[in-house]
């Protein structure tokens, strides 16, 4: 029996430095504070959501100091004033007793869950001391910085650069990176989808009805329900988007590229491609056409399990609706290591359909600068870029910079998982510290055991978050960030077919001793002696500077929350160009056909769409032309293991939010009845899933909505640290089953693997 004398008890429970290992109330959590009513900062405040990466414009109203009702902001037309379940539940973060509201310092062994509350000053001093020592001894590059992309990553990466480390990472390589890089390789920029005007949509498992991106979800539904668009879905699982589709084709996991190439083949061999468009805008068509000669639908059939007749029919159907038809290039990627080819092949179909800058096709974002140039007048204010003089240039290369084929990743968030090899095997050099903001690699990066080993090898880990996430549980220092409902942030660009800006604003007074991350890293910089690189006073001065000192516009923006300027413009769409020209008398002269076709330029070396790219060939030999390469994703006696998003959770972040945890806290594994029958498994049975790197116990969901050779689980469940009380131990931890495998060129963490299944 443990003896507790009065002294050690008092020592353990003492105020300020409370350390408790086993208490039900986490030190530093909101539960330790007295509950106070919420203090609203306005009747209804317009702001920006942060429950996922879409960041929809919202409005929030405090109800009786008790609740917050969050809806969408109607000023943003395409968002329709709507909000999803996650967005609607965001206020639950505010008063969640498990939320962290005090900086915490690890006092026991790493990961043991023993924490002591410290003051911000102590936290900054500890951080400055450790990081500066590591910098002095090993160099600034031995500190990795990673963050969720968005408003916070700007300030955070500024901090990293000021510190002198080149090693900054977003979650891109764990989620949406591939389509961005494929798009940049071909078009020189990211593209957007005009779903609502499309008459025919092919979708490779971009599950917009579960992975909700409000404006795109609404646009897809508008196209389908109001405008009668046809939707064809290729996906191994019967998802909600598959249910809503006109056709669902249960494709073999990871073989989408073969379908996309076969469609290209039909379009070219049947002479259905837009030759005029290709002549004017496309580089490398001939090489591509030569390559796809081999990729007949008959060739694709045994690879994909999709009938050649269907592929051929679908290709002809979509061509008939071109250019008002598109193939969705997806979001969360990495069904296969051939991601780069897959996403490029999808873009290639769109190019062949000639749908670029047409209604119902793909288009380039029109920011203020471009838009104003076309209009010949200042329709929208341009946002000033706030740059700081005297930023240090890191002398070391990034850790993911040793292989040239990954050139494109360096400017697109990097290869996040390369932190693991660097930390564990000093490849290409060792890492000593890891600073993270709102990222949860222990949940979202492949091979949890490896992530854990890497974390354990670090000398110092700082995590900035609102919860003790699965990752924060292994930190040495946790910096409690204010929730998004308590933060003011930079004005953000939300331009689509026309310019638009929006801004995050505080809805309620800050609860507890938390700070917005821009302030945290500014103050940390002060403590570290690099405060001179953070010359702004506060967020208000930044916003003011962003709007070039236009106080009136800033006031208007804050009132409305979202400002849209001008009317939609697609350079090759006659009706939109005509309306644009009528609106702006000073507008640029149109071409003879009444469009701005000749003005459409791409930021590629050739200024054209590079269907085949000599630039890609230069850093990734053999990859200049899109080509099919067979991939081994599982062993013969294994099942494919795939994952996806559910409408009520965001992969690494929301599983402990009370309302959402109450909606769903377990991810029963989808198993086909035939597969389940062979193993004697029924719905609700306990099962064990084992892959090459890990093994997980979970529950079974026997359903015909999945291929016989595949099992599926929703991402983000099965947390293994005790701090996330509502999420821990519930469901299958996907990251623990996925091996750390990286796709060529795009550097994506592969999300398909082989597993064995057994009844427990």
């Amino acid at each position, binding site marked *: 029996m443990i003896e507790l004398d009065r002294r050690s008890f008092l020592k353990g429970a003492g105020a300020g430095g409370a350390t408790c290992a086993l208490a039900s109330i986490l030190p530093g959590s909101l539960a330790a504070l007295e509950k106070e009513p919420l203090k609203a900062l306005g009747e209804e405040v317009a702001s920006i959501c942060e429950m996922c990466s879409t960041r929809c414009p919202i409005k929030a109203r405090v109800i009786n100091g008790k609740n917050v009702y969050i809806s969408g902001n109607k000023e943003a037309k395409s968002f329709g004033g709507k909000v999803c379940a996650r967005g609607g539940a965001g206020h639950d973060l505010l008063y969640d007793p498990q939320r962290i509201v005090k900086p915490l310092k690890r006092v026991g062994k790493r990961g043991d869950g023993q924490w002591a509350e410290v003051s911000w000053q102590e936290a900054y001093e500890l951080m400055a001391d450790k990081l500066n020592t590591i910098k002095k001894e090993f160099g600034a590059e031995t500190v990795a910085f990673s963050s969720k992309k968005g408003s916070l990553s700007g300030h955070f990466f500024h901090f990293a650069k000021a510190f002198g480390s080149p090693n900054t990472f977003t979650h891109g390589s764990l989620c949406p990176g591939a389509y961005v890089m494929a798009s940049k390789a071909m078009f020189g920029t990211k593209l957007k989808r005009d779903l609502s005007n499309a008459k025919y949509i092919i979708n490779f498992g971009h599950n917009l009805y579960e992975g909700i991106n409000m404006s795109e979800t609404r646009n897809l539904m508008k196209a389908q329900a109001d405008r009668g668009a046809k939707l064809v879905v290729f996906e191994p699982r019967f998802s909600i988007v598959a249910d809503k589709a006109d056709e669902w084709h249960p494709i073999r996991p990871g073989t989408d590229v073969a379908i996309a190439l076969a469609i290209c083949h039909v379009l070219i061999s049947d002479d259905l491609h837009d030759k005029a468009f290709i002549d004017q805008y496309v580089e490398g068509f001939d090489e591509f056409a030569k390559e796809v000669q081999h990729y007949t639908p008959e060739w694709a059939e045994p690879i994909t399990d999709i009938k050649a007749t269907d592929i051929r029919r679908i290709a002809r159907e979509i061509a008939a609706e071109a250019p008002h038809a598109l193939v969705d290039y997806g979001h969360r990627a990495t069904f296969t290591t051939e991601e780069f080819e897959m996403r490029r092949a999808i873009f290639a179909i769109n190019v062949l359909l000639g749908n670029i800058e047409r209604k119902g096709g793909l288009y380039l974002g029109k920011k203020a600068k471009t838009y104003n140039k076309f209009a010949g007048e200042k329709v929208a204010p341009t946002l000033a870029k706030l740059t700081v003089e005297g930023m240090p240039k890191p002398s070391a290369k990034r850790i993911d910079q040793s292989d040239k084929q990954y050139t494109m990743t360096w400017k697109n968030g990097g290869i996040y998982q390369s932190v693991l090899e660097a930390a564990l095997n000093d490849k290409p050099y060792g890492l000593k510290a890891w600073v993270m903001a709102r990222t949860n690699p222990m949940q979202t990066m492949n091979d949890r055991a490896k992530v854990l080993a890497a974390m354990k090898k670090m000398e110092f880990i700082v995590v900035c978050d609102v919860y003790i996430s699965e990752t924060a549980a292994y930190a040495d220092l946790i910096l409690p960030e204010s929730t998004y409902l308590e933060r003011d942030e930079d004005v953000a660009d939300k331009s689509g077919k026309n310019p638009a800006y929006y801004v995050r604003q505080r809805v309620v007074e800050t609860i507890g001793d938390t700070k917005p991350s821009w302030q945290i890293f500014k103050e940390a910089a002060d403590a570290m002696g690099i405060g001179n690189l953070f010359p702004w006073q506060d967020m208000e001065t930044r916003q003011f500077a962003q709007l070039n000192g236009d106080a009136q516009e800033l006031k208007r923006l804050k009132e409305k929350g979202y400002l849209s300027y001008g009317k939609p413009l697609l350079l090759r769409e006659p009706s939109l160009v005509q309306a644009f020209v009528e609106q702006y008398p000073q507008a640029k002269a149109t071409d003879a056909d009444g469009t701005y076709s000749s003005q459409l330029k791409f930021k590629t070396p050739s200024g054209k769409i590079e269907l085949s790219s000599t630039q890609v060939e230069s850093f990734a030999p053999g990859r200049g032309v899109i080509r099919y390469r067979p991939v081994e994703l599982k062993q013969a006696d294994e099942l494919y293991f795939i994952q996806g998003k*559910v*409408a*009520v959770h965001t992969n690494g972040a929301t599983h402990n939010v009370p309302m959402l945890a*109450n*909606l*769903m806290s*377990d*991810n*029963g594994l989808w198993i086909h009845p035939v597969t389940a029958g062979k193993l004697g498994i029924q719905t609700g049975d306990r099962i064990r899933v084992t892959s090459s790197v890990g093994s997980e116990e979970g529950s079974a*969901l026997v*359903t015909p*909505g999945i291929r016989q050779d595949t099992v599926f689980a*929703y991402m983000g469940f099965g947390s293994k640290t005790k701090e996330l009380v509502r999420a821990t131990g519930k469901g299958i931890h996907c990251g623990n089953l996925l091996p750390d495998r990286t796709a060529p060129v795009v550097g994506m963490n592969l999300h398909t693997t082989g597993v064995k299944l057994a009844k427990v």
Partner: protein
Amino acid sequence: MNNIWGDMTQYEPVTWHWVIAVYLFLAGLSAGSLLIGIGLRWAKSEINSAQEVATLKAAAVIGPVAICLGLACLIFDLTKPFDFWLILVNYNFESVMAIGVLALLLYTPLAFAYAMIVLRDDLPKWGMAFLSPIAMALLPMRKLIEGLLFVLAIGVGAYTGFLISAMNAYPMLNTAVLPALFLVSGLSAGAAANSVLALLMFNSDVHDFELGRMHRLEVPVMAVEILFLLMLFSALYFKGGAAAAALASLSTGLWANVFWIGVVGIGFGVPLLFMLLPAATRHSKGAMLTVACASLTGVLALRHFIVYAGQSYIS
């Protein structure tokens, strides 16, 4: 699809649990006991004997006590038991429960009044002599009270059935035969309880004439009960759909066991088996008590079966 819509416990079909089954049993028992007691008294040639018979005395005890216990169950099953008075001052006359409350409001005091009349000679023995003057004052109104009580007892007995048969979503409950079934099984329980109390409390002889008369009622009552059950199940069967699906309650799950072992085996089987025994054995006190307890168990099991299985199948 995985459940992403949250907790489903509030949607569990069974809303009313064993407390309500026990209440339905006790209310039926109270009514049945008084109906048997008063009925037998009326059926007797010379009503005005000065001596109250043991079976009637038993009924006079069971009537008020059982209904009070039942009401206690009901009140403490409310989510706001201390607000139960609201139900006495607010009435929705479309509601079977409101009508039942009214009936019980009359029935319960009358049951007490009648008990005082019947037990007037026993009151002093039980240290309740102070009630004797009231009993004597009520005595002249015996006929009126008895008549009213008889009618109200029919109402209360049937009400327990109407209460749950008024819910049209449940095919097994929403049947015309249910109130009749509950009334008859209440009689069965009443007769059994009367004999137990007569034998144990009022030292009735096993060969007592009244006891014998009551005993002879058992088989016909049981036969009617079985008939009603058959009607209930065949009606479900022929109605088809959700109603027929409810018949699964007879073949699967805990409540099938309760029905076959409790209702059929103990409630009907044991009394019928005892009839095969030689007269001497079956008329022993032990045998009579066993049969009575078996009947009571059967009726209690029936209430549970109907309440649980009935709510489990929704159309």
